[in-house]
């Protein structure tokens, strides 16, 4: 790394020596896994639906590069710049979500996508990390100025987002956002009795969702009792893990992807299971855990409530999304269409995760602490 000397004072060098390089390594490993698995799984899907076999792979790589650039760009931002950008994205995202019922595309029974410049975007994906940052900002502000009703604003925003998500409907995303905000409230120091009340409310909400959305009910029913309906995707997914065994079939050698409609996205973990085998699949799961644990540990050193809340929310989001994806394909959770962060094919999801990770990197940079400390001292 001679071209990035510690003594250099240019922007890139400063960034490199202050950024969380361990996290960058983890993210790079995930991206490598992702390209490999999409390369293995997507041709089968693409050919099946009449596209060129590299259709998804090329798009994945292109979007991944954009996401990396976005992540690095975001990681350069100051906390102020970050929450401004987040506010912008959140505003645009919410606007797009409101528009969706009028201009959106219906993909697989849910209206989540909006067509923009030849790309289909899923605004809710981008809203997720942006909301985490904005909510963190609002809550942190309340800590500083007693009379600022930040928590109320955050709650209002949350209500709007969940409402919009339920209109699509997108139960999985609502669940992630809800968990995220609960994690943030938890970190902000909310009393346990309130948290328990929220938990009860959450269960009530789940029951309402269960009884009012047919597709959610059928999925949960099927999870609880496989004989009630088709468990085709999960059967295939489990089959792929069993096939994989200790060594796996080898990258590209799997066959289950031929029978899984969403092998390149919602069931890419199953492809990993079959083709990479136990060791590398466990490693893959382990990296998500490392990202979460490592990120949270970094936050312990932080003196800034905003950083803690924002990172906490985002890391919860990433960790939980990965858990839900893995849990679905391992049949320890009801089947839920959820992308595996950094790995699954899915344009908006990649961009969103790039932005989210960029935010974490930005908030955990070394010099931030010095600057924040000095600001607090000056206050």
């Amino acid at each position, binding site marked *: 790394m001679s071209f990035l000397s510690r003594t250099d004072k240019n922007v890139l060098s400063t960034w490199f020596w202050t950024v969380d390089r361990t996290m960058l390594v983890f993210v790079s490993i995930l991206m490598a896994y992702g390209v490999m698995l999409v390369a293995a799984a997507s041709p*089968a899907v693409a*050919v*099946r*639906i*009449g596209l060129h076999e590299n259709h998804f792979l090329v798009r994945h790589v292109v979007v991944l590069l954009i996401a990396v650039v976005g992540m690095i760009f975001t990681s350069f931002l100051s906390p102020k710049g970050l929450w401004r950008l987040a506010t912008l994205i959140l505003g645009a995202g919410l606007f797009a979500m409101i528009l969706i019922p009028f201009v959106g595309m219906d993909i697989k029974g849910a209206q989540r996508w909006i067509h923009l410049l030849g790309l289909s975007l899923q605004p809710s994906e981008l809203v997720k990390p942006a909301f985490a940052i904005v909510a963190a900002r609002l809550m942190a502000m*309340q*800590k*500083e100025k*007693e009379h600022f009703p930040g*928590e109320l604003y955050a709650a209002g925003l949350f209500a709007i987002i969940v409402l919009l998500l339920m209109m699509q409907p997108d139960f999985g995303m609502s669940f992630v956002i809800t968990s995220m905000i609960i*994690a943030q409230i*938890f*970190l*902000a*120091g*909310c*009393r*346990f009795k309130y948290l328990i009340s929220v938990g009860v409310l959450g269960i009530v909400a789940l029951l309402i969702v269960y009884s009012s959305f047919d597709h959610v009910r059928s999925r949960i029913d099927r999870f609880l009792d496989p004989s009630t309906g*088709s468990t*085709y995707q999960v*059967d*295939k997914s*489990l*089959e792929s*893990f*069993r*096939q*994989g*065994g*200790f060594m796996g079939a080898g990258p590209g050698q799997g066959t289950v992807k*031929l*029978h899984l*409609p969403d092998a390149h996205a919602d069931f890419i973990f199953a492809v990993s*299971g079959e083709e990479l*085998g*136990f060791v590398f*699949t*466990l490693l893959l*799961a*382990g990296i*998500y*855990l490392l990202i*979460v*644990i490592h990120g*949270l*540990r970094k*936050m*312990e050193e932080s*003196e800034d*409530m905003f950083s*803690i*809340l924002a990172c*906490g929310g985002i890391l*919860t989001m990433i*960790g939980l999304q990965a*858990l839900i994806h*893995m*849990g679905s394909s*391992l049949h*320890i959770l009801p089947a839920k269409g959820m992308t595996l962060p950094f790995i699954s094919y899915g344009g908006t999801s990649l961009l969103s995760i790039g932005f989210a990770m960029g935010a974490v990197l930005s908030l955990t940079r070394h010099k931030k602490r010095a600057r924040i400390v000095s600001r607090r001292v000056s206050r």
Partner: protein
Amino acid sequence: MASSRSLNRLSVTIKGGHGGSLEVARARILMMRALFLALYCVVAVRLFDLMIIQNIDLGEGGEHINVSHFIDPEQDLKVRRADIVDRNGVLLATSLKAASLYVDPKYILTPERTARALSEMFPDLSYDVLLKKFQKSGRFVWLKRGITPEDQANILKIGDPGLGFRDEYKRLYPQGTLAAHVVGYSNIDGQGFMGVERSFQAMLEKGSDLTLRTSLDIRFQHALHAEIAQTMQKFSAKAGAGIVLDVQTGDVLGMVSLPDFDPHAPTSSPKNTQFNRVTQGVYELGSVFKIFSTAAFLETQKNALSVTFDAREPLKRGRYTIRDYHPEKRVLSIPEIFMVSSNIGTALMGETIGAEGIQSFYKKLGLMDKPDIAFSEVGKPLYPRPWRDINTLTASYGHGIAVSPIQLVRAVATIVNGGYKVTPRFVLPESEERGQGTKTRLVSQETSDVMRSLMRLVVTDGTAKQANIEGYDIGGKTGTAEKPGKKGYDRKKLISSFVGVFPMNDPQYVIFVMLDEPKGIPETHGYATAGWTAVPTFARIVKRIISFQAIKPQILHNNDFSQKQSVSNIVYGGQE
């Protein structure tokens, strides 16, 4: 550590002091880390469970997975049906594993696209019908059975999870129509429906280790098939039949019934093509029966060869008149009667033997009962009941008694093989015990010897001169019978047949050729009798056999019966 200290302050309220809330946050970060660690441990445990423990449960390689809806408990591939080969191991019927395509409508992903792709691939599957099948409520609908590997690969490329395959065994008949009636056919479920496939069903369905070796020799079969088919076409015959039988063992070396059918698609040919004219059909074969009546005469009468009969006038018995086809109008010796095929002479022989004598002799040769052969399609002979005196006369020259060709050749084999019983067989025994086993004598050696000379005479000097091949000792007997019509016999509709044996001095093969309603052509001066139709066909078949069996020509003795000389010496002695 700072974090463990802060555990005590977990419940500090949000509205606590600024530094305090950071302390709380740090404590709670620790809790979150623990929570995530625990959740990921669950994932790790589940991964271990699925990929290591359950993988081991699958056994070596973990190749076969029981995914409940894809593998039907009844799916287990049926036992592979045994192959059928000819006596030299040429494959006549085999079973190949072939995929059969079905649809599970529940999992069909893109019904229209898949239906279109399949209908383009298989013209016999229409788009509409496929689409309809895709929408059925069941979980299993056959689409097409027995597909080639190439088509299977193309179907897999469609990539619809609703399409599935099951391996089945498809029965293939590499010889096509050639031996259709002998081999028969079986359906996709392994049920034999005809011929050897049906007769040996129990053995065939037992499995693949066994190969059923038939007595058939595909070269004989081909010679028969090709020549009879050609003759049928030449004389516009309605049907034809032929059989080659080993006179010692009873092995059916070739057996043809035309028109025939494709065993791969038996129902696509007219129903009557499945009728086996050799074993099922019974015919009044006419003069070939003179072999048996003459033999009966030799067996029952003393000094039979010195007897002569008056054939100058048509024979009148009651309201019946028996005429000769080519009247000699003189007194004929027994060899002469046989050689010129005199109905009058033969009828008089029959009268001499008597009804009981003729019937018991025919019965002994197996001409009066359903033959006891191991074959599923067997016809029952027809003869007059009650048997009146005139029937004795007509039955002597083959009228009023109908037998199947296989019965006929079987009886002829007995007459020429030294007089032993022959049972036609279609399947070779595991180990051949040549010369062993008890032979049942039905006819005396002397009669057999004389009959061979007489049959040789028919070829050298009689009605079957066209069967003569220089250097080869061929004998036989022609038969031209009028078919029974609505009002008595129809002069225009003939059954022309020839039964030949060769080599006559040490008989090996008895060959029978029959044509149903051949029409005369200019080349034969309008004749469609056996001498013009069945005999040349027989000769061509024999020529083919001579060439592929590499039978050398030999210097032939003069037949002592020829030139109508004395009858005291017989060429074919027992010692030869």
